[in-house]
């Protein structure tokens, strides 16, 4: 499935709230690291969602190793502004004065989108960073804001370019805009569940993102339930699980009481109906977006940690989500 490759150097992972985009971002990073890449995994808005997935308490603004080949970073606008001032102007003192004062909140609120520019700007810096002639990171995975806020996030550089007519901020914004609109450098990976509403929102987001001139990569369909029943049996189980089960039990020589049959029928029926809806939702995704798909199963677990991420990473790798490092681009 070459179409499902994540080929850009920056992968912006987004999706409707609750679809598991943080987990998918982490799994993608781990899969890439296993393929030999140096990966930077970034979170914004201090959502603290990534750390527990790697058994850590906290990810800070200092880049720190999370797993072999995976470095974690939490981008905070205040810190990014101070760093920006230092990098571009050599201003250290003011940076320190500003930090903690309301000025930073102001500055990040004042220029519309400045906050987002600082966040994406930090990603651009990491994307361009070189160590001894090679890029420091082969892939940067961003656990991005949910799809509802994604357009605003991606629009920020353009808004700033339009509003600020000169000066370094404009240059910075232009540089960021160049990166996000270059499909070799930046791709949006949308995560969805195989349900109507997330699929509808994903299709909508794919369209909006494309209109902004940003490339949309593969869609990750997360939380897919196993096809437990044969396609021929699906309708019968969905509509009247109990009769089918009683019939099977009789023929298998198992004596199941009313209570057992009732409970089995409830679970089996719900699962079968879910499977039917799931197929419909995936078909809808296919017809509305035509985007290549990566599929991840529903994990029967109420907590996500290292093991779960590793399993999902395996599954992404098996589906060819990432090329081996060093392959021609």
């Amino acid at each position, binding site marked *: 499935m070459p179409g499902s490759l994540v080929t850009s150097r920056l992968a912006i992972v987004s999706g409707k709230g609750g679809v598991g985009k943080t987990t998918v971002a982490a799994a993608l990073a781990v899969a890439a690291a296993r393929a030999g890449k140096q990966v930077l995994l970034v979170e914004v808005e201090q959502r603290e969602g990534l750390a527990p997935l790697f058994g850590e308490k906290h990810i800070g603004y200092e880049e720190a190793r999370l797993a072999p080949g995976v470095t974690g970073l939490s981008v905070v606008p205040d810190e990014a502004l101070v760093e920006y001032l230092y990098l571009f102007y050599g201003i250290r003192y003011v940076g320190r004065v500003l930090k903690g004062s309301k000025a930073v909140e102001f500055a990040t609120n*004042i220029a519309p989108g400045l906050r987002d520019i600082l966040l994406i700007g930090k990603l651009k810096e990491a994307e361009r960073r070189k160590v001894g002639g090679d890029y420091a990171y082969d892939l940067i995975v961003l656990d991005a804001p949910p799809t509802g806020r994604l357009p605003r996030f991606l629009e920020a550089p353009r808004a700033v370019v339009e509003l600020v007519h000169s000066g370094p901020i404009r240059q910075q914004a232009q540089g960021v805009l160049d990166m996000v609109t270059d499909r070799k450098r930046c791709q949006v990976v949308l995560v969805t569940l195989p349900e109507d509403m997330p699929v509808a929102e994903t299709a909508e987001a794919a369209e909006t993102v494309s209109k902004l001139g940003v490339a949309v990569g593969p869609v990750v369909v997360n939380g897919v339930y196993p096809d437990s029943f044969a396609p021929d049996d699906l309708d019968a189980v969905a509509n009247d699980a109990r009769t089918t089960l009683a019939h099977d039990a009789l023929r298998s020589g198992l004596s199941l009481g009313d209570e057992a049959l009732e409970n089995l029928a409830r679970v089996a029926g719900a699962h079968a109906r879910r499977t039917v809806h799931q197929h419909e939702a995936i078909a809808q995704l296919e017809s509305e977006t035509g985007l290549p798909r990566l599929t991840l199963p529903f994990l029967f677990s109420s907590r996500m940690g290292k093991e779960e991420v590793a399993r999902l990473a395996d599954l992404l790798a098996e589906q060819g989500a990432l090329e081996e490092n060093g392959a021609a681009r």
Partner: protein
Amino acid sequence: MTALSELIADRHILVCVGPGGVGKTTTAAALALRAADEGRRTIVCTIDPARRLAQSLGLDALDNSPRRIKVPSAHRRAPELWGMMLDMKSTFDDMILDMTSPERAQQIFANPFYQHVSSTLAGTQEYMAMEKLWELHEEGRWELIVLDTPPTRSALDFLDAPKKVTDFLEGRFLRLLLWPYLYAGKTYLKAVNFGAKAFLKVATKITGSELLADVANFFMAFEGMYDTFKDRAKRVHELLAARRTGFVVVSAPQEASLREARYFVQRLGAEHMPLGGVVMNRTHVVPAAAGLEDPRALAERARAAGNGRVLAPALDLYSWWREISLREGDAVKAALGDLTDVPIWQVPDMADDVHDVPALRRVAEELLGPLPPMPPGAAAPPKKESSES
């Protein structure tokens, strides 16, 4: 503990809060629909930019003004359900028009900085939701207002929103920094402290002077309006804390969502906000059943018999879901178990997506039981107070 049915029957405002992706909008819609089915004139207001409520009611579009939602009746009388979708920018515009002279308002609208602030400033969305809530309350047309809230990661945004926005607009510090722009032509710069001067120098360097001038004009235009802002924020706060308001925390039984739910519950308590309870969506309750003590072994037997095409996978699924159900129960207990005075209302995971009226009614039934029969005397249609499209 209050029963959810009481909240539906006698509260004036219900605010649904919680993390994203747990079915908050659906819950808000289901509660509003039930109240309407019980004969209360109800409006549900959502602020989600993804237009999910519109979808979940099978409507193409809701907008910033209340619209009657056509709902097939569950009783003799057609339910009076209204819906609206908050548009931040027009709510902000309306508010400014309401607060100042038309000339001043036009001046503010024309400012490029305002155009961005009104839609992007952190907390604006939450603040405008509160403003709209007040407006709907003031209009007095609805017996119940159900408010859906944005899935802000932190509840702080929601409760602090008025303060955050007024602080920003008041911006004493900013005004100090922008002194030379605010009083252009006068040489007050000497009076400004070093930090401010340095900041200004940097800010000009970074953003260019036009933007700073826009910002200064923006703050000038708001001159004299800060107290009004504060008063409005205060009365909304009082409305939220009122006895006839109820907060409903919506969650799902996964650790991450439960952590958020706990935070919401505690924070509402600390702010003395009237918490109704927690709606726990997407739960899997699979009870132990006689004869299914060892489903895996039964599945093996069915497979061995060669006739377990449906039975064997059904037994496997039962065993899976039973395990999930136990784990979810543990997770809920671990997260909320010590908050004994907080009722938790469960909604089982629906195999079908909830996006139409019958499905919303099923959700309401899971939460509240079957729709009670119409009380005698309530059957006659109420006198029309206003005729809306």
